[in-house]
């Protein structure tokens, strides 16, 4: 509420100034005129995302359980030592890292293979692409429910049903009927997420493939380059920025995944990732101070990773024409 979005779009005065190059006349005013259109978005974003974080920072220094509101007091870094000593929190750090890395890497690899398949022309390509996009378009909670109840359910889920049916075909009466979610909880969450995110990666990489300079490939082929050589030395370097983009966006969203963990396992069986742990700490355990401290630690971790990732991704700009 604090940032009135109605203040948007006052750029009218700015961009009409006759000619760009000579900044001789009233440069300060011109600079502000160029900057003005940026301000509403910037202010809005700072107010809605950075202010709450600052408040989290302050809260993290207090011993504050909402069930005992009178007992609220300043404790310095106590919450941080509590949280860092907490085995559950440390476990959820590992879970988050493993979950994110596995889902992003596997969905990029499968996505790349699918994109390569779809880049060729064959009958019904449009239909296949539409079918492949579907998982990305199912509401994540609905997808998680689908996997948990309709596919993984040990008694009447599709997976065990198919096992039963296939076993029946070869004459086995009592095939193995795994309890998917209890036996392999983290894998169960990962599989559903890979299913949802592979189409996303495929779409990005397909766009990359379709923007390849074909004349270059034609020339390489005339020079006698084989398919593998063309892929290794032309396609892959061209795809690099698309791969990076997919990895970056995928990581941003999967590190923060809540829906799948919340729905499929309720964070149990060692699948609680950091977002779920923080949600639990403040929503069910009412430990506001500790939840905030965990949140701050997550942000520090994210900043370290983000700094690294942004440096890598800055190659996204290297091919663009600079206009500054």
């Amino acid at each position, binding site marked *: 509420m604090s940032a009135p979005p109605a203040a948007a779009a006052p750029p009218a005065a700015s961009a009409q100034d006759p000619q760009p190059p000579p900044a001789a006349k009233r440069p300060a005013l011109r600079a502000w005129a160029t900057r003005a259109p940026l301000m509403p978005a910037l202010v809005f974003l700072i107010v809605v995302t950075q202010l709450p974080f600052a408040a989290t920072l302050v809260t993290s220094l207090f011993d504050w359980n909402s069930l005992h509101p009178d007992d609220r007091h300043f404790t310095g870094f106590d919450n941080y030592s509590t949280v860092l000593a907490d085995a559950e929190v440390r476990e959820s750090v590992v879970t988050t890292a493993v979950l994110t890395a596995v889902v992003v890497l596997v969905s990029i690899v499968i996505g790349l293979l699918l994109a390569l398949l779809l880049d060729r022309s064959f009958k019904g390509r449009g239909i296949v692409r539409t079918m492949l996009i579907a998982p990305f378009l199912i509401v994540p*909670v609905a997808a998680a429910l689908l996997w948990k109840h309709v596919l993984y359910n040990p008694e009447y889920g599709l997976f065990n049903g198919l096992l039963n049916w296939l076993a029946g075909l070869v004459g086995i009466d009592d095939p193995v009927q795994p309890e998917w979610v209890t036996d392999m909880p983290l894998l169960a969450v990962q599989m559903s997420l890979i299913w949802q995110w592979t189409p996303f990666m495929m779409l990005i990489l397909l766009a990359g493939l379709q923007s390849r300079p074909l004349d270059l490939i034609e020339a390489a082929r005339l020079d006698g380059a084989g398919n593998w050589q063309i892929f290794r030395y032309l396609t892959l370097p061209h795809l690099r920025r698309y791969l990076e*983009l997919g990895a970056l966006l995928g990581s941003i969203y999967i590190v923060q995944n809540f829906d799948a963990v919340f729905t499929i396992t309720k964070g149990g069986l060692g699948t609680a990732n950091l977002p779920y742990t923080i949600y639990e700490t403040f929503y069910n355990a009412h430990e506001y101070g500790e939840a905030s401290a965990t949140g701050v630690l997550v942000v520090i971790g994210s900043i370290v990773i983000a700094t690294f990732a942004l440096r890598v991704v800055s190659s996204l700009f290297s091919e663009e024409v600079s206009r500054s």
Partner: protein
Amino acid sequence: MTATLTAPAKARTGPVPAPVRRARRRNAALGLLAWISGILFFLPVAWMALTSLHSEPDAATNPPSLGAPLTLDGYREFFGAGGGNSPWPPLINSMTASVVSTLLVLLLAFPAAYALSIRPVRKWRDVLFFFLSTKMLPVVAGLLPIYLFAKNTGMLDNIWLLVILYTSMNLPIAVWMMQSFLAEVPISVIEAAQIDGARLPTILARVIAPITGPGMAATALICFIFSWNEMLFAQVLTGVVAQTAPVFLTGFITSQGLFLAKVCAASLAISLPVLAAGFAAQDKLVQGLSLGAVK
């Protein structure tokens, strides 16, 4: 290396039919492989659709029943269920939050992207990085203060709070996408229009809008999808009145036990707006996701 390869390659491009036939067979095989993977990925969705059309006993069989009679009972149950459990208020809430926040995002992101691409401010790369970096601040890190703020100001269970939060959630990505779309507009065209005496509104409407239209549509589509799908904020900040469709979906299941057909019908019904929009605008989705890097 290339020299040694040239000879056999040339021989292969000769008018011999056998290798051509082999290549064709290979193409057919790869096409088939693509079809198989497409069907595999689509299978869960198709199965969900089929289950949603079964009666409850037929839905819960092992091995799966393919030939069971079809019925719309699952959907009837979902949409018609009495007892204050109607899905319409949550669906309307989701629609309001997604559409209004998408419009707000466009309104805020366009001027910003304009300032970062057409007449870029100094250090525009840094500003662009800042926008994306806010996306890396995990939402949980600000959730508690937002919750307390909402509780103290009476904004809890209020759909407009979600509108604001969804706007901030999608704004960074929208600025990024729009920046890359706007960067494709040739400056010379804009300057030519200026020399002809066109002012900013005319330039926006006649030059920039036609070139960037599809990109803007892609941006809007992606913002809509992410807002419609959002779950954590909605779970924590809404209750009865402002409940959104995803939250309704989870509550709907735990309170009534396991009814597979109804769960499937509900899941598909709630995914329908996104499915329809996504299928209808596949090309734009591709363009948007690749941040306009494809022409």
